[in-house]
């Protein structure tokens, strides 16, 4: 009985934090119809603001909480004003991608200012514990519960009884009607971002105090947990979000009690996928189907793609092939090889997200499947490189497509969230399925690529191998795009309803795109594994998925040549100019924001 009570208290405390996050996400979704991927970054900013206040100003706790709330609110207003408002009336996936850019920028800014090392955030509260029948509740537990309940009550009062609260609810129901009735919807958006960010920031402070440690990797987790909690309650449903937060907190706490800590996130994501499949409108909604979301999956600006004549393309390939003969510098060649591997991943993503319009935020998971497949076949079964790599491609095509199939039934935002979840699940399964994957140890000693007896141990040889694959898979993809599949895929992207009315089965064609893309990505992951000789569950992480999205948008959605160009520009150039890694993520974030704002069609145009 004793320990279970502790797990319950712990679950409720953590659940309160999730509820704080989820309420903010739900408010923002309600008025702006947007899933704010920067929410977790505001949470981190809040934690660091709190640390700064405590460390330098020695503020008492109530003042610290107010300072954190105010500071985070300012950050929220700035996000709304500068990153999102300019994107009003763009397709709904554009602001979603912009918030991803904002989160990269905020996370890296915090990391540059405070260094990536974790810091202690002492709780300042008296160290007493309240004994209740053999177990105890600490002061901090009560504070967190108190903050949660108070903010829920304040928010309820605000929405229900204040004039501004009415305007918020009116805007959530129908922004156009609200603005015709004289509601300044821009101001409402700003207010909502301020409230949501204040709650999120305070959540960050409380979590920091709870674990007595803060670091910059908190953001991503916070965004995801908040999102799962919000989805449990139903998109945009504020009371539902509170319930969702508590349910998620309890589920996690009991799950950890039963299975151990490394399963914590696996529960959250399994719950995410389950809720998306079974009750996409949340646990408390009675609506019987998804609201219609026309054209949300697409982020395609009208544009004419730049088409290079064949001789020019051939010339580029020849130059790329001869390049190592002229400039045989291992470092440069390795960098370019990495860029070309990214191009292989980007081919896959540009097909799925560009041509078919299904934004995938977990694409690096495909690399992980490919890498582990080839690595394990080579290490445990002695398969040669030339056999294990295609086998890895095939396994990735099959596994990746099967895993993502439930997500492909959904539209718009749901696809993005579900693919993000699937990507995380891949990594967590690798971490926990020790019997197959060696768990946290990772795979080491993956053999060097070799064709028959010839070991490809020079940077030059490896570069050529990858270049050949890029050219082959690129040509194959272009050929597919020029067939009936090209127009069918693009028709699904443009208007799934109209495409269905003409006999196109969306699931079949999305799955075909995913299978073909998965094959290429699996090969890329396999080659990367042999190249690095060591991989673990974090080698192919969400950051890589986000980088791939940026590459694809930079090159032009659906544009095969653009994918190569984007990969070279974003992967090779910063490396060659030796930009430090932390600045690199900052550059990616800013690049993503600028592209969405000023050149959504990318450098070479969408196809």
């Amino acid at each position: 009985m004793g320990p279970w009570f502790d797990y319950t208290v712990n679950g409720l405390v953590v659940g309160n934090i999730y509820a704080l996050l989820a309420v903010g996400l739900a408010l923002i979704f309600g008025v702006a119809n947007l899933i704010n991927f920067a929410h977790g970054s505001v949470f981190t900013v809040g934690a660091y603001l709190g640390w700064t206040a405590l460390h330098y100003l020695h503020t008492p706790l109530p003042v610290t909480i107010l300072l954190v709330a105010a500071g985070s609110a300012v950050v929220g207003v700035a996000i709304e004003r500068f990153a999102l408002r300019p994107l009003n009336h763009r397709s709904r996936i554009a602001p979603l991608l912009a918030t991803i850019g904002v989160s990269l920028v905020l996370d890296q800014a915090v990391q540059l200012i405070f260094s990536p090392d974790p810091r202690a955030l002492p709780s300042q509260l008296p160290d007493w514990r309240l004994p209740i029948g053999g177990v105890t509740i600490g002061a901090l537990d009560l504070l967190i519960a108190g903050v949660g309940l108070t903010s829920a009550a304040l928010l309820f009062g605000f929405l229900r009884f204040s004039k501004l609260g009415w305007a918020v609810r009116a805007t959530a129901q129908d922004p156009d009607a609200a603005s015709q009735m004289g509601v300044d919807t821009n101001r409402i958006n700003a207010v909502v971002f301020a409230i949501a960010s204040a709650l999120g920031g305070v959540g960050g402070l409380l979590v920091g105090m709870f674990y007595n440690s803060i670091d910059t990797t908190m953001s991503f987790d916070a965004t995801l947990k908040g999102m799962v909690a919000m989805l449990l309650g139903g998109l945009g449903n504020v009371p539902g979000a509170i319930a969702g937060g508590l349910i998620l907190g309890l589920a996690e706490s009991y799950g950890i009690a039963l299975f151990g800590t490394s399963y914590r996130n696996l529960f959250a994501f399994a719950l995410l996928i389950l809720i998306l499949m079974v009750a996409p409108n949340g646990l408390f909604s009675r609506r019987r189907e998804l609201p219609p979301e026309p054209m949300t999956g697409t982020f395609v600006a009208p544009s004419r793609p730049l088409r290079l004549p064949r001789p020019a393309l051939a010339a580029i390939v020849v130059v790329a092939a001869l390049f190592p003969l002229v400039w045989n510098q291992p470092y440069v060649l390795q960098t370019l090889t990495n860029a070309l591997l990214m191009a292989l991943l980007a081919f896959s993503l540009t097909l799925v997200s560009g041509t078919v319009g299904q934004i995938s935020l977990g694409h690096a998971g495909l690399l992980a499947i490919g890498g582990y497949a080839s690595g394990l076949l080579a290490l445990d079964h002695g398969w040669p490189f030339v056999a294990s790599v295609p086998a890895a491609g095939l396994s990735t095509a099959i596994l990746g497509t099967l895993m993502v199939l439930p997500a492909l039934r959904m539209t718009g935002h749901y696809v993005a969230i579900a693919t993000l979840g699937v990507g995380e699940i891949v990594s967590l399964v690798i971490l926990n399925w020790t019997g197959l994957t060696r768990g946290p140890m990772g795979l080491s000693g993956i053999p060097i690529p070799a064709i028959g007896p010839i070991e490809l141990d020079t940077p030059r040889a490896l570069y050529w191998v990858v270049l050949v694959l890029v050219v082959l898979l690129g040509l194959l993809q272009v050929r597919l795009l020029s067939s009936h599949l090209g127009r069918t895929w693009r028709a699904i992207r443009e208007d799934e309803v109209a495409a269905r009315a003409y006999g196109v089965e969306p699931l079949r064609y999305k799955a075909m795109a995913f299978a073909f893309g998965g094959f290429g990505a699996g090969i890329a992951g396999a080659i990367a594994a042999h190249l690095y000789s060591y991989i673990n569950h974090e080698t192919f992480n969400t950051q890589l998925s986000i980088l791939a999205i940026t590459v694809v948008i930079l090159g032009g959605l659906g544009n095969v040549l653009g994918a190569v160009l984007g990969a070279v520009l974003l992967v090779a150039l910063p490396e060659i100019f030796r930009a430090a890694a932390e600045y690199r993520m900052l550059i990616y974030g800013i690049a993503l924001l600028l592209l969405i704002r000023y050149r959504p069609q990318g450098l070479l145009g969408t196809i």
Partner: protein
Amino acid sequence: MMASLLEITGLTRHFEGITAVDGIDLAVQEGELVSVIGPNGAGKSTLFNVISGLDRPDAGGVRLDGVDITGRSPEKLARLGLARTFQHGRVFANLSVLDNVLVGTHARLAAVRPGWRGFGPLGELLLAVVRPGAVRREEAALRSEAEAILARFGDRLVPRLDHPAYSLSYANRRRVELARALALRPRLLMLDEPTAGMNETETTEMEEVIAALKATGLTILLIEHKLDMVMRLSDRVLAMDDGHSIAEGAPATVRDHPAVVEAYLGHPANQRTAVA
């Protein structure tokens, strides 16, 4: 009596609190052109959505050529020869005019969609890459057929085959939509306000195209607000208001039916309020 091509019985669709389509019965014979008229919000487009499988009815049934198709998915209905256009126009904005029309032929692709049990999609991918003669011939035939359909609209679309649909005028987009529907070689063509937003010349041209299609024996179900055109084109008319059928029969009879007049002009009492 000859069986109807389309037979709707007691079709009903509720949305939260309102009944958008309420017990509609309708039979359309082969080769007939039947128009559905009624004020905005009468439930005409919902009726179309339910027939074409984009929405499911809460009660009632739809039969196409004697086969019960109630609640079947739109992609299956497309294969049975049911083609429709949309009220607000839903062309594929970033696809070229020709590609838009070619998507209309999708339900008829055969050579490139092998019936390998369970491996059909894989076969389709392979055939799209390898493109044996049969696949190439099929694609070429569909392409020239699409071009022929586009030629129906004179020089409105033919010079713009490669233009993306977003660059077209509104009227041209509606034409592309109709061309796409024809590319399905429909047995039943459902047109949802094909002349909405068109000026008089464009409307006349569209009416001529529809009349020519009717002359070829094509069965057409038409939603249209322009009553003159409805009177000239239709064999029969169904008038709806508030989800109900309020009159059905020969065009002139329906036009002069008191319930129809009232639905369009409102109750005398309402009129007085409106003037005041």
